[in-house]
């Protein structure tokens, strides 16, 4: 028998058309799912691209929060968190912590006084093999209420069009809360004086299966010393990492971890809106930073502080940001690991915190 029946009949032709149609249809559905037919879809790649400064991203580095200094220490749980969540991390005890003080900038060489938002990435590991990763910032609210609005903000702030920001603000009135903080809050002279907030809401699940929406903050033990960006600039472009390394060498630095529980009706899906001050807050433990670590080749370099890596007992809520951040952090991680040759692996100068 030849490859195809002879003579080549009309029904054979029809079969070929059918086969082409079915296979083509599956391929088209695949292309649609991949977003190739929807150029307007916000992809993690676009979000990461929008973070890049005009000259392009710093290769081999985190695509945002690129400047930072790593630390190690412990999270000392006081046991109070067990009332909220059955995660092991809330059982009274000490668990190893790895973290990174950072500045919310895509430029690893930015001067400290030019970056309004500071952050902390943190990973706490527990003996049950689980991890709690979080990336927090020092503003009390997030500048955008949805990932799409955040993307629009990045585009507007990078735009040469003088009206771009005005149009963004008009379309996103929630931005005003963040703007008010950014314009008026005092700067501090140390990471140790900064409060770091999860901003996103997560669900805490207790032993009885009760689910409560909560946000957490790390409250500094060190009293804030208010300064201005102009005065901070006088201390030098890399003052903050030198200062924290020196401070931690002198004594461990502490933050109290406080979990704030939402009342029903509080916005859990919008980190640009704060919850009222009177909400139930549970102090669940203390982060003790014992040692800073050089950023190049340090233990933080290869860690993605993906905020959706959660222990069982903590889950994501209806807040759309953790998923969006996870997807974008992953792209950033994939890019920077692929650019490893551009990363300054060899420490050629004495880095703050490194022993000479």
């Amino acid at each position, binding site marked *: 028998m030849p490859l195809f029946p002879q003579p080549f009949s009309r029904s054979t032709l029809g079969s070929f058309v059918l086969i082409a149609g079915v296979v083509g249809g599956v391929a088209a559905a695949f292309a649609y799912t991949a977003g190739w037919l929807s150029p307007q879809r916000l992809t993690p790649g676009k979000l990461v691209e929008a973070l890049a400064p005009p000259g392009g991203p710093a290769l081999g580095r985190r695509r945002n929060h690129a400047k930072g200094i790593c630390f190690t220490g412990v999270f000392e749980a006081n046991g109070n968190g067990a009332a909220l969540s059955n995660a092991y991390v809330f059982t009274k005890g000490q668990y190893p912590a790895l973290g990174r003080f950072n500045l919310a900038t895509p430029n690893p060489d930015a001067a400290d006084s030019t970056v309004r938002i500071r952050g902390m990435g943190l990973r706490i590991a527990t003996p049950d093999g689980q991890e709690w990763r979080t990336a927090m910032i020092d503003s009390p609210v997030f500048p955008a209420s949805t990932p799409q609005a955040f993307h629009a903000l990045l585009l507007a702030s990078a735009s040469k069009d003088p009206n771009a920001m005005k149009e963004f603000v008009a379309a996103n009135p929630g931005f005003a809360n963040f703007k008010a903080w950014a314009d008026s809050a005092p700067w501090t002279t140390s990471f140790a004086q900064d409060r770091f907030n999860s901003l996103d809401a997560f669900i805490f699940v207790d032993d009885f299966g009760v689910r409560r929406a909560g946000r957490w903050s790390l409250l500094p033990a060190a009293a804030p010393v208010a300064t201005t960006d102009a005065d901070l600039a006088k201390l030098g472009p890399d003052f903050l990492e030198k200062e924290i390394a020196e401070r931690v060498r002198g004594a461990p630095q502490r933050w109290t971890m406080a979990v704030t529980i939402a009342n029903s009706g509080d916005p859990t899906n919008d980190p640009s809106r704060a919850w009222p001050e009177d909400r139930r807050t549970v102090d669940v433990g203390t982060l003790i930073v014992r040692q800073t670590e050089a950023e190049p080749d340090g233990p933080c370099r290869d860690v993605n502080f993906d905020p959706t890596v959660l222990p069982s007992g903590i889950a994501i809520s209806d807040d759309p940001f953790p998923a969006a951040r996870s997807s974008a952090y992953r792209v950033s991680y994939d890019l920077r*690991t692929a650019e490893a040759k551009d990363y300054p692996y060899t420490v050629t100068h004495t880095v703050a915190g490194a022993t000479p």
Partner: protein
Amino acid sequence: MTPVRHRFSPLQRLLHWLMAICVIAMFFIGVGMVSTVMPGYLPLIAIHKTLGIAILVLVLLRLAVRVHSGAPSLPADLPAPMKLAAHLSHYALYGLMIVMPLLGWAMLSAAEYPVVLYGKKFLPAILPQSAAVHTLLWNAHYYLAFAFFALVLLHFAAALLHALVRRDGVFETIAPLPLRDDAAPASAAPADA
């Protein structure tokens, strides 16, 4: 020797169609999850991991069944190049079903991500953290996925060709129905019956 068989065993056919659903779902989940920032990203990536490991287990089971039960032979009159293509593509399909989940698992390990099987069940890391290895595995997983999808489309087109154009009984060897293996060989029946 094994007697001449006209169909794969019911277990083989069940595994084939179950895995077909899983593998095709994986392509769509994979390509969908990496192109979205929406909340669906998290369940998609979770399912991708669970399903990937399920496929790895199923394909190993399937290979064992294949070794035990064998396979019906291809029609004697199938042109040699087509026979060769059929054999090679099946080796590639089996290979990819084994390799892709392992690449994914190794890639997550090399990035120091916890490998969640489902819920509280974790899998151990199978590699230490390494940027270079992560990149290598990531590229392999990514590009092989498209090659795998293309191969599945080809497999699908070939199956339809056998079923609709050649009508040579090859499709019937794996067709989900009838379950019993007592049907006459389709290739023995007149093609235009």
